[in-house]
């Protein structure tokens, strides 16, 4: 028992190092004078200030924020409607509907991105921010719907019945009882959708026109230059920190509401 558990810990430690060390170096380098180790003049905001001089980079972050925000709003609204329908009603073809809904979760984004782009081009629609937003709504709806379905199912239906019993109509019941009680679920779904949109490259790379989102911008620069240029370390750090911050917030909400 002890021998095998020591080995397990050694391997796990090695894996953890492989996961976090490279990312830690990236974060360190973004605050470093030079683009390689060892540290010099650490910490400095030099590259972050430098980043402000690249309008393309700043625009990319702006576009990403816009895309993620709109996507989140739409995906949450669809998630609430879809989740409520799946949790509370039985309709013909519910299983098929659920299956279809989950399909985008398993479809590789490159396949989805390329086929969607080919389709839209044939329809005469050109790549643009709107197209990215549509693509992102498609891939985030399954997540928001799933999260909210499980929240609606977990909600004791007799709470809604109690509201109706006390004189509230369907809409008042939803507004005064259902919605406030699944609010933590809505927040979790929203953060999840935001992170997915915020980080996506595989889909956006096909759907982006001249207005690239931040991950696409980083990716296209990386493909051109074989080295991680310093401003990219700064930009990557910003994207990563924002995502981790949101994920942390999501876990907090989940823990409190559990």
């Amino acid at each position, binding site marked *: 028992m002890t021998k095998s558990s020591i080995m397990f810990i050694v391997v796990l430690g090695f894996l953890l190092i492989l996961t976090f060390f490279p990312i830690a170096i990236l974060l360190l380098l973004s605050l470093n004078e030079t683009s390689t180790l060892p540290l010099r003049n650490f910490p400095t905001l030099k590259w972050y200030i430098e980043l402000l001089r690249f309008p393309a980079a700043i625009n990319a972050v702006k576009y990403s924020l816009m895309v993620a925000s709109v996507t989140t709003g739409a995906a949450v609204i669809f998630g609430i409607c879809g989740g409520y329908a799946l949790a509370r009603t039985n309709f013909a073809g519910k299983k098929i509907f659920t299956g279809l809904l989950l399909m985008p979760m398993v479809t590789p984004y490159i396949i989805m991105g390329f086929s969607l782009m080919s389709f839209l081009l044939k329809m005469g629609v050109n790549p643009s921010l709107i197209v990215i937003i549509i693509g992102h709504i498609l891939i985030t709806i399954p997540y928001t719907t799933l999260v909210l379905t499980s929240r609606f199912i977990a909600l004791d239906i*007799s709470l809604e019945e109690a509201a*109706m*019993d006390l*004189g509230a*109509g369907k809409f008042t019941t939803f507004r005064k009882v259902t919605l*406030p009680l699944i609010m933590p679920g809505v927040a979790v779904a929203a953060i999840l959708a935001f992170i997915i949109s915020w980080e996506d490259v595989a889909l956006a790379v096909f759907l982006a026109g001249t207005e690239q989102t931040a991950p696409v911008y980083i990716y296209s620069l990386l493909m051109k230059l074989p080295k991680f240029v310093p401003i990219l370390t700064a930009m990557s750090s910003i994207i990563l920190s924002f995502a981790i911050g949101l994920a942390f917030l999501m876990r907090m909400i989940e823990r409190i509401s559990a």
Partner: protein
Amino acid sequence: MKIDVELKNVTKKFGDVVAVSDVSFQVEKGQFFSLLGPSGCGKTTILRMISGFEKPTEGEILIEGEPMADVPPFKRPTNLVFQSLALFPHLNVYENIAFGLKIKKIPENEIKARVKEMLDLVRLPGYEKRKISQLSGGEKQRIAIVRALVNKPTVLLLDEPLGPLDLKLREEMIVELKRIKREVGTTFIYVTHDQGEALTMSDKIAVMKAGKIMQIGSPIEIYEQPNSEFVANFIGGTNVFKGRYENGAVEVDNLGKITVTPECQLSKGSVLVSIKPEKIFIGRKLNALDNIFAGEVKEAYYQGRVVTYRVLLENGSSISVVAPSPGMEGIFGIGEKVKIGWNKKDSKLIT
């Protein structure tokens, strides 16, 4: 007497399953009416049909004489205390109780007064600002009851509200419920599977089995004059024997002749006789009783107030006897030879 609730030949099917089958009854104004039966007997379904959450497949429900077929739950003059209580966890005690009044757009100061009155009724004054999660089980129970009562419903419906409470608390809440009932005077319809609760609190009890009503009557009628073996057994472990009636006596296999109070209408034939365990005397010697049998104690259960014996009679029948503890002759041990007996007025015929 004014009738508050009436069911006329109500049947409810879920798909092919018949949950409630041709049930009719009337509940008088101010009555404490209990639906009593084992789980799955359809009693909760009846409550949900009265409150409007289920629609009868056949038949009609009237409240204060009005047919309810097209009235949605939120427009019925009923309020339901849910088995899960269903207090709103995101609202405090005041907001929970005021929920129904706010929807009816009652002025804020009247709401305040009525909530206060309700909290006084259940002896929880000053609880307005408490969160639901801060309440104990018994307190939640009381808040759930007054959240319904504050709306002054014609009928208050209660769906096994004491189910999740432990023994001690349940006894307290029975006392509490009876007091509340007396003070507000509202008609109560109470669903339970606990015959003790039903006997203690009700004015009238409907005993149900598999979607049908077996007997309706006052607690004393139900307990003393059960009309079927099912009711006799369900209400309280009684001794039921099958036999043939003839001339004021019943001949029972493996037991012998039992004398009963003769009933004029009864002609000879197959009958059931019920003898309540607490009507049976037990002792080393017995006399001056109409029916006396000899036997041997097989089991003895000390229960503090009483001792329950299982006695194997000489003819092969087994009978249970509840005797005060300690009796005149002490507690009988297992294997002891005893006599048991009872008066013929306590041999109740079930026909």
